[in-house]
């Protein structure tokens, strides 16, 4: 079996060092690549703060080993298109979608996937698609409105 140990993160190829292969993708992104917009809220796949796109699909980076994503393309909040982030940010501003902000990066990544036609039917309710993202400040209504407002 060939082990593919390169990944493309936010458009840049990286070789995953041997000592990172069996460590969490979350830690590799945060520590090695300094992409600290990816947050650890629970480390158990429950809160969604560490959500990244792997080959375009949203995944919890706390549940993936770095070695497992070899050969794949990873997008973190830092790698979302500037134009999209501006829209998301301005919708959050308008609708009060941000309080402490710790969950917001994960929600931004999810929403970009939704807006890119990533979902199965394209008509699933936002609340269903975001059931894996916890906002303890309770901003669900505002985030839902903000996301609906992004075109």
């Amino acid at each position: 079996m060939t082990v593919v140990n390169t990944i493309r993160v936010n458009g840049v190829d990286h070789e995953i060092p041997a000592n990172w292969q069996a460590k969490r993708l979350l830690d590799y992104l945060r520590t090695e690549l300094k992409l600290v917009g990816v947050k650890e809220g629970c480390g158990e796949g429950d809160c969604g703060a560490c959500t990244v796109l792997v080959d375009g699909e949203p995944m919890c980076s706390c549940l993936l080993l770095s070695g497992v994503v070899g050969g794949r393309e990873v997008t973190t909040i830092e790698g979302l298109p500037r134009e999209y982030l501006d829209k998301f940010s301005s919708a959050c501003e308008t609708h009060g979608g941000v309080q402490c902000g710790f969950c917001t990066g994960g929600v931004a990544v999810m929403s970009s996937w939704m807006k890119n036609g990533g979902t199965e039917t394209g008509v699933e309710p936002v609340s269903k698609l975001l059931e894996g993202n916890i906002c303890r400040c309770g901003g669900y209504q505002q985030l839902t409105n903000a996301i609906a407002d992004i075109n």
Partner: protein
Amino acid sequence: MLDMTPPKISTIADRSTGRARYTSDLVPAGTTLVGIARSPHAHANVLSIDTSKAMALPGVLDVLTPEDFSGVALGHHIADEPILTDRVRYVGEGVAAVAAVDEAAMIAGIAALDIEYEVLPHAIRVDDALALDRPIHDNFPDNVARRFAAEPGDWDAEVKRVTHWAEGTFETAAVPHAYLEPRACLVRVDGNELELVSGTHAPSMLADQYNKIAAVWGATVEVTTPDMGGSFGAKWEHPTHLVCLSFAHRLQRDVAMVLPRRDDMIAGRTRIAMRIFMRIGATADGELVAKQTKVWADNGAYSLHGPSVLLAASVRVDNLYKFSAVKAEGQLIYTNNIPSECFRGFGIPQSAFAQEQLVDELARKLDLDPVEMRRRNAVGEGDTSVHGWEVTSCGLEDCLDMVRDRIQSHRNDSGLVSDGRFKIGYGLAAVIHCVSNSGHDEATDISNIIISVDPDGTICVASGEVELGAGTAEVLQRTVERELDIKRGQFRFVLGHTSTGPFGRGSFASRTSFFMAHAAIAGCKIFSENCSKLVDDLGLETNASIAEIAKLAAQKGHAESLKATAQFIPENVVAADDHGYGNIASAYTFAVHGACVKVDTLTGKTMIQQYWAAHDTGTVVNYQGAVGQVIGGVIQGIGMALSETTAVAENGQLLNPGYLDDRVPTFPGMPNVDVHFAATFDKNGPMGAKTIGEPPVIPVVGCIANAIYDAVEERQYTLPMTPEQVWNSLNTKVQ
């Protein structure tokens, strides 16, 4: 010398695009990591700790044990919480700490510690603690940390007028704060200078406490608060801060500790679980006359803010209605549970759960509309409440009208009706809350502001208060923009930074915006006057802008003469006496909530169909922020009402230390929350504003319980009102 540049205060844009920096984001790779060896026992003496094997491991740099913190304890009222303990009082309490070069070495170091325990009998329920034949703290032989009693009014005379009583015994749960950012701290060191970087409610108060302790080591401590991923009442002084400060000083290395979620919850804090007996007496025509309350509060292993929360839970909700006599008593009882702590609402949601249900029950008994019942009995502008609160503005009537009208429209228009299995119900609840609580700590309930000019001419506004994510920074910006007529970008500001900012009491008791804005307005006034005085010397026109004046003053070396410092200390406010009597706040705020629920009688599940929240918060300074606070409070209240609790095994172990099993609200199933603000103006408030932080969470549990009663005609006495709980209430009736 440590670089004490304050962190940039993040904007909404920073926080929504991954650019905000929280404590764990600031830890450089390779920083020495600290971990804690936790007790597996709920109550035990630590007989010995052998550190030799751990110290011999490669990568382990240092180990701390209880001896290193001998005589040091934390506590707001009762200094009872050790830093590392030789007498364990809950499962997960820290016994020893390891500093190591990386995570693997740190974990190996903890595993290599040889700790010998002598297990003691423990108690995880307040009844068991009261009956425990040995004290959890030796100087509290009956396991009661604090007793409280109040009896304003002539009880014996007043109860003679009572014709109808409603009463019940209510149980509330130990809900974890479950903020999304787990506890983290980074300590930077240079010689005897220490900087603690950590999200907290009260950087000035932490620095004050920690400096007293660090003085013994010959060190000084400054506290820096970066972006903070939620707290809701949990992040104050904590033993892990002192462990990290000590390691950093001993090793002369920067150290960091970022707790995993599980550890954060095991060794965290929770809302104070309470049993509340309450009865309320009314006359036949609906006057609320007398109220009796007995509170048994589960303090957990250590007291923290427990004594103040006990007082608040015992009497604060009484102030909403014009009771003629009140009898309240409370006990704060040590158990071997996780130390319980203040949590948004400060014990008041617990007692509002009881009171608002009993008022609802009396209205039904007397065949009165619940809105009219509250209108008739509530305090209003100019009133002094039964515990001495002087109400300077009151929008309760407006709030009642708004919720009543919307419930009525919803009844007419929503098309929701009960059928055989699914029952529809409407409920409402009201609240009064104080803006700060000078009774808690009169001497330090102040807020300071410093306005200065940087060498490049930028105006710098430094407040001692802190941004928890609730919108403090936005309120400060808008206040300064308004008062100095300057724009964003023409000034910078500093919050929660003890080395360059002034003292502030911190974020608690819904005080931050009120105190900070008052201080800022006073500071801006002085700064403007200083600017006017300098206009001639600078050769500027009299209508020169503040920004122009500051810029030129900096260039010509006059920056220092512009500097303004101001302080806000509330007037006409007193510390409550031992019985909780006194006008403890500059202003009081009101709210009325309403809910429509659908209860599935087959499963007991409650589904909230629509929620209304009407708040009297005085002038709304930051509308978007205020709406966010209201909706967020409601959502947290829904978690407390329907799903959140700590499950504790008989041996004291927490069984649900994570989001999978502690059911915090998530996106699906959350109702639309319709938010309204009453048009009030408080003469004591900055720009007429009062407060918004805590009130939104307080009425939710009572409101939903009343709606459930309306749907299924069963009172709910236990939180959370899970499907099992509600189903049991429907199916275990005495035949």
